[in-house]
């Protein structure tokens, strides 16, 4: 059995090493946010909380962040729901050109985001809905739609439909079967899809910059504006704050609804 232990050890080292690599930039961001000097130093020679106080100096940061949160939450929810239907259709039913359709649904990821922004703003202006918050929402939905589709399809492909058949044979209606059997098993796909969509939308700059004007602005745009004129660690401090908030939210949902650990199954 020591062979197996050796195996586990090697995988363990590789795995934990990779996790350290994964966490590294976030840890660095947090570290840098406490930098005493104006310039980013690693390791820092002194520490300070100044940059946290300075967050309020990022122009329009409050409303921009609110807009970003709203758009990200709405976009992620809407596309996840729509993706559910689509994923079910793809996996459960046979129809012509399925492979092509699947590729099409996943193509927004391969298209450079700049192109999506440019294509959309011209389209919106033509429709006379440009620079409204719902046009921004639409842009973000197009951007992130592919992610939940992928994750839910993945969940479904490896899904054991025997339980569904068992439920049906016991007389459960299709709707109840769906709610009580199918949906819970799809939780991994739904949740990871939602989270990907949310995080990507929240951080997006290239699409937003083309679609906003005037009163409408998003958090990444204001942070980018700030970074372009100040080279201090304030963006790192701000990043740390919202990472903490997002983590707290995820943890809270986990506590209340045991969503994440349920989503892992087993």
């Amino acid at each position, binding site marked *: 059995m020591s*062979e*197996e232990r050796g*195996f*586990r050890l090697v*995988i*363990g080292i*590789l*795995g*934990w090493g*990779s*996790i350290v*690599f*994964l*966490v590294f*930039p*976030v840890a*660095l*961001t947090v570290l840098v946010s406490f930098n005493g000097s104006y310039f980013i130093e*690693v390791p820092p020679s002194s520490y300070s909380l100044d940059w946290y106080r300075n967050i309020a100096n990022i122009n329009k940061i409050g409303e921009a962040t609110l807009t970003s949160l709203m758009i990200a939450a709405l976009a992620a929810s809407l596309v996840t729901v*729509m*993706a559910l*239907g*689509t994923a079910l*259709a*793809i996996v459960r039913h046979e129809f012509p050109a399925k492979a092509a359709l699947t*590729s099409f*649904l996943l193509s927004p*990821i*391969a*298209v*450079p*985001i*700049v*192109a999506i922004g*440019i*294509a959309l703003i011209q*389209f919106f202006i033509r429709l006379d809905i440009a620079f409204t918050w719902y046009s921004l929402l*639409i842009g973000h*939905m*197009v951007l992130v*739609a592919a992610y939940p589709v*992928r*994750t839910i399809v*993945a*969940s479904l492909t*490896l899904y*054991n439909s025997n339980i569904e058949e068992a439920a049906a044979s016991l007389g459960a209606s299709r709707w109840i079967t769906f709610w009580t059997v199918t949906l819970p098993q799809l939780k*991994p796909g739904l949740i990871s899809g939602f989270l990907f969509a949310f*995080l990507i939308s929240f951080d997006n700059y290239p699409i937003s910059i083309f679609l906003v004007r005037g009163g409408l602005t998003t958090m*990444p745009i204001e942070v*980018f504006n700030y*970074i372009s004129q100040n080279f201090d660690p304030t*963006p790192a401090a701000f990043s740390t704050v919202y*990472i903490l908030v*997002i983590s707290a939210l*995820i943890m809270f949902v*986990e506590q209340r609804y045991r969503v*994440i*650990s349920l989503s*892992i199954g087993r």
Partner: protein
Amino acid sequence: MLLAPLLVFLTVFYVIPFWEMLLESFRPWSNDPEHVRETSFSLYQYTKVFDSSRILHALWRTFEISLISVVITFLISYPVALLMLWLGPRLRSALLMIIFISLAASLIVRNYGWLVVLADQGPVNRIMVAVGLFDRPHRLVYNQWAIIVGLVHYCMPFMILPIYGALVRIPQAQWEAPRTLGASSWTTLATVILPLSAPGIFGGTTLCFAICASAFVTPLMLGSPSTAMISQVAAEQLLMQLNFPLGSAIIFVLTAFVFLLILAYALVVRKVLRIDV
């Protein structure tokens, strides 16, 4: 039908705007120094794409960098997925959260961090010199390697989760049976587990490849003009030269290539390796 909402939405807000872009790619450029005044529709821009050594180089480089990044991401993500399989539920939840949180920090801030960390006098160089792997600090930034580091890091969550999702469905028996027959853990991994987790590997690799191929911010911040990836070249045409026809053509060539590559990949996996993905 179930398919309808998303399909309708994407048709209206994705297909139609891009249809316009596609049409644009067949038109001549109003400011073209060669004063090409072709009649409305032609493949002129596409011939320009394939004539331009810069665009072709960028295309090749994009695929090279994407391929390398995807392979490295796979190699370091698979152990993480295995780890998640073996750990207890609490640690698993914690890991899952860490994976998502790595996406939460602003990409610009993260990339700036890589610039600092990989600097000549930065921690990585200092450690490598101290440990003796480098004889002197190496230029780790403004080149392909920094880009690959940035891309690998960004792609990890998108690789770990599909693979984990596939691993978790593999019954415990599949791990134990080969061992009882005398096979080593490594052999089990290679001959049994890997093929069984193929759908996850396929999903993860194609997703990561698409992400890398269209990457823009990371190569911009970590690379140099000589390492420009195709997104940057397209952006140059679209944003700076305002050559929308050529920019659109580049975008569609990229999309076509990515599509074809993934198709070829899928065919090879299904027909040659006989794995169902």
